[in-house]
């Protein structure tokens, strides 16, 4: 799942604005807090990307390879995806 830097920054600002506007949180250092939120989003999608690639590689090497996008492929994708997340303790 690809996500652009601009999109990451946009979502980070939405989160920051929401917490501040709704008086849910204060940030002693605005710039560093925003950078931390961006970093967290980037890290999250980086792991998602790694998991996706690992699952696709596993599916491609599967002895009874399924057609990508088919129902069987989707079912196996979800199964392997959950396994891969569990392996990474996610």
């Amino acid at each position, binding site marked *: 799942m690809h996500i652009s830097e601009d999109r990451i920054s946009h979502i980070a600002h939405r*989160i920051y604005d*929401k*917490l501040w506007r*709704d008086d849910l*949180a204060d*940030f002693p250092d605005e710039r560093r807090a925003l950078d931390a939120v961006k970093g*967290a989003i980037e890290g*999250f999608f980086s792991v998602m990307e790694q998991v996706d690639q690992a699952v696709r590689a596993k599916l491609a090497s599967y002895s009874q390879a399924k057609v990508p996008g088919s129902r069987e492929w989707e079912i196996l994708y979800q199964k392997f995806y959950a396994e891969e997340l569990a392996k990474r303790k996610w």
Partner: protein
Amino acid sequence: MRLKEEQIARLAEKVLGDLERAQLVEQKQGRAAVLAGIKSAIAEDLRLEEALERDAEALLEQTLKAVGGQGIDRHKMLRMIKEKLAKERKIVL
């Protein structure tokens, strides 16, 4: 970008966890409220993105019907419509 509810929850947990570890957040109404706020901000933005995509598809169909659709690069036109809508709605894709 599509995220399931559990993925949104996981992302929200990571955002808040990272802020807490770096001591960059003072939670004024408790952790659960902050976490709910983060989830809601992410979910709302994804809803806006999905609405934009639906509207862009509908606009594309209308345009293709109106002009006959011959010789038009569907993919390119869809991208142009999305960019226009995103600018109007102040959404970054």
